């Protein structure tokens, strides 16, 4: 099929739904939740009711099974209203994706269906205090005891952990084996031995919740193991390969909000007798911001399109996530500059955008790691 940038009517409708939800439900609460750090459960519940939550869960389990491109369109709209809420909404996709990809039909039935039948949250638990980037070196142990595994260890920075009813946990059955020992488990929150640390107080994305989860001899039945022992690392990477692109879209949404605010302000604010947009220094800023935004969006579309075509998109998804999140930081930074002193004030919306955008450079693989991946993938073509 020839390349087309025309969205289908259906895609426009999904975009319209997300944009309406963002405007009516998310935007009015964004500033308040940013200030207080409140987790707006009513927003997430409504998102679930409208089907905006488990976008990647296949239709046969009650999800909407959307192509990744459509997921990205929705994510951009949501993020233009609040990055933090969008992270919490997307967290279910991230947490359920290992079950989607690595679960048996029976496990998918058992674990995915309840999420589509009722409002529930799940968390993806990979990162540990000892290191996030080097996931192969994780320390959480899973020891086989009869028909069960006993998990001991700690996972930190886990999105939605305080509210989640289910965790997908990556632990090692044999630290000696490094990557090859890592195994994925589905752990219900109410498993004895699972406990929560206090909620983190964050720089940005404060409407999402983040906490440490501790496993103290938590016993998980064998039926909760995803795939075989040792397949966990590949499963984690495959999961992140497909959820990285929406992080690019999330960054695009935040950046778009910053650019829109800055554009309106530049036309309205006057100095030296003219709207500041007429000063070339401001106009060229906006010119650069537009370029970066457009490029970011196209990179996420390309990456999503490749995934939807069943093509390998490790390089493209890393490019999209890394470029879009770096661009979002520059765009938000310039937006604050255009707002002058007002931009620095909490009463104005742009400084929040900068704080929210920052996370996109860190989670789901820090951008340094993305660059390593990109160069490795690219250099392979020459070796």
């Amino acid at each position, binding site marked *: 099929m020839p390349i087309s940038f025309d969205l289908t009517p259906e895609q426009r409708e999904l975009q319209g*739904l997300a944009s309406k939800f963002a405007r009516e439900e998310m935007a009015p609460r964004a500033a308040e939740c940013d200030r207080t750090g409140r987790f707006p459960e009513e927003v997430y519940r409504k998102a679930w009711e*409208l089907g905006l939550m488990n976008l990647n869960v296949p239709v046969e389990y009650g999800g909407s099974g*959307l192509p990744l491109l459509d997921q990205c369109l929705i994510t951009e709209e949501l993020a233009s209203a609040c990055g933090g809420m969008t992270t919490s909404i997307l967290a279910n996709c991230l947490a359920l994706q290992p079950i989607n990809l690595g679960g048996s039909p029976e496990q998918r039935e058992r674990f995915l269906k309840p999420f589509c039948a009722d409002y529930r949250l799940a968390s993806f638990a990979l990162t540990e205090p000892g290191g996030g980037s080097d996931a192969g070196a994780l320390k959480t142990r899973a020891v086989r005891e009869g028909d069960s595994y006993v998990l001991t260890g700690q996972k930190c920075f886990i999105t939605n952990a305080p509210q989640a009813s289910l965790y997908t946990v990556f632990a090692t059955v044999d630290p000696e084996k490094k990557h090859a020992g890592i195994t994925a488990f589905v752990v219900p929150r109410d498993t004895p031995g699972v406990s929560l640390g206090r909620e983190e107080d964050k720089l940005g994305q404060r409407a999402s919740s983040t906490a440490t989860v501790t496993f103290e001899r938590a016993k998980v039945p064998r039926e909760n193991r995803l795939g075989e022992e040792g397949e966990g690392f590949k499963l984690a990477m495959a999961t992140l390969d497909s959820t990285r692109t929406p992080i690019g879209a999330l960054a695009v949404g935040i950046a778009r909000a910053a650019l829109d605010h800055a554009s309106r302000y530049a036309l309205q604010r006057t100095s030296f007798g003219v709207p500041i947009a007429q000063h070339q220094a401001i106009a060229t800023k906006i010119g650069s911001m537009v370029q970066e935004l457009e490029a970011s969006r196209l990179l996420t579309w390309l990456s999503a399109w490749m995934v939807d075509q069943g093509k390998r998109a490790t390089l493209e998804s890393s490019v999209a996530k890394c470029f879009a999140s770096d661009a979002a930081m520059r765009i938000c930074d310039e937006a604050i500059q255009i707002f002058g002193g007002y931009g620095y004030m909490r009463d104005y919306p742009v400084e929040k955008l900068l704080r929210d955008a920052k996370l996109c450079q860190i989670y789901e693989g820090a951008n340094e790691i993305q660059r390593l991946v990109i160069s490795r993938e690219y250099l392979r073509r020459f070796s």
Partner: protein
Amino acid sequence: MEAVVCIKPVPEADSRLRVAASGVTYDPEGVRYTLNSTYDEAALEEALRLKEAGAFEKVRVVSVGPPRAEEGLRYALAMGGDEGLLVETRPDDLLDPGFTAAVLAEAVRSLPHDLVLVGRRAGDDEAGVVGSALGEHLGIPSFAFVTGLTVSGGGSPLKVRRFTEAGEELLSVPPPVVISLLKGAQDPRTPTLPNILKARRKPLLREPWTEVLSRHPGAPVRAPAMRFELPPPRTGAHLVDYQSPAEAAEKLVKLLREEAKVL
């Protein structure tokens, strides 16, 4: 019983309007359309609630408009409408409300219509003319400024509550009837994502308006727009001069009534 809801896509309230090159309408470039004017959404919500309460077997949605009006109909189907009919105009056809009513009447006539619901008025021309004109063309009663509607189904009379400046009236009206809602059900539902996807598979018929109109007896007159105007840009306040506060008040009220026409 079966209901028909008429909907019209209109530009969003905060759209930036510019005069089109023709000078008789606005430039559609850059205008975002809401899927339905809020009044139509409320009317559809009312019909859907009545259907859920067992009053209707089916709720159909009809729109006369350019191809993009399909989006509005799909939205209505995603909200819960059963079938859609788009009477298609070309993007540059300008249909005034009276003429639209004649076309709409022929479209509605081809469908079972114990109740025809229209919104209070369109968000763009704000004419509120279509409802009773539709009733006339269909040869059935019509009631406007309706604030409440009870339908028990099975062809029994509808209870219609309407606003008049002399008080509210409760009427008993046998179907079929056209109802213009002053305000419909509050909080029209937002279609869910699965319902948006399902709406793609609901039947949506398209017919060119010329064909639909050919079924109309006689040729309805058209009242074309001659000119579209935007208010001149603000040039600073007209300051009221006065001797006494009472005079200032009188003068200001006169200006607001007669010049600005906002009272």
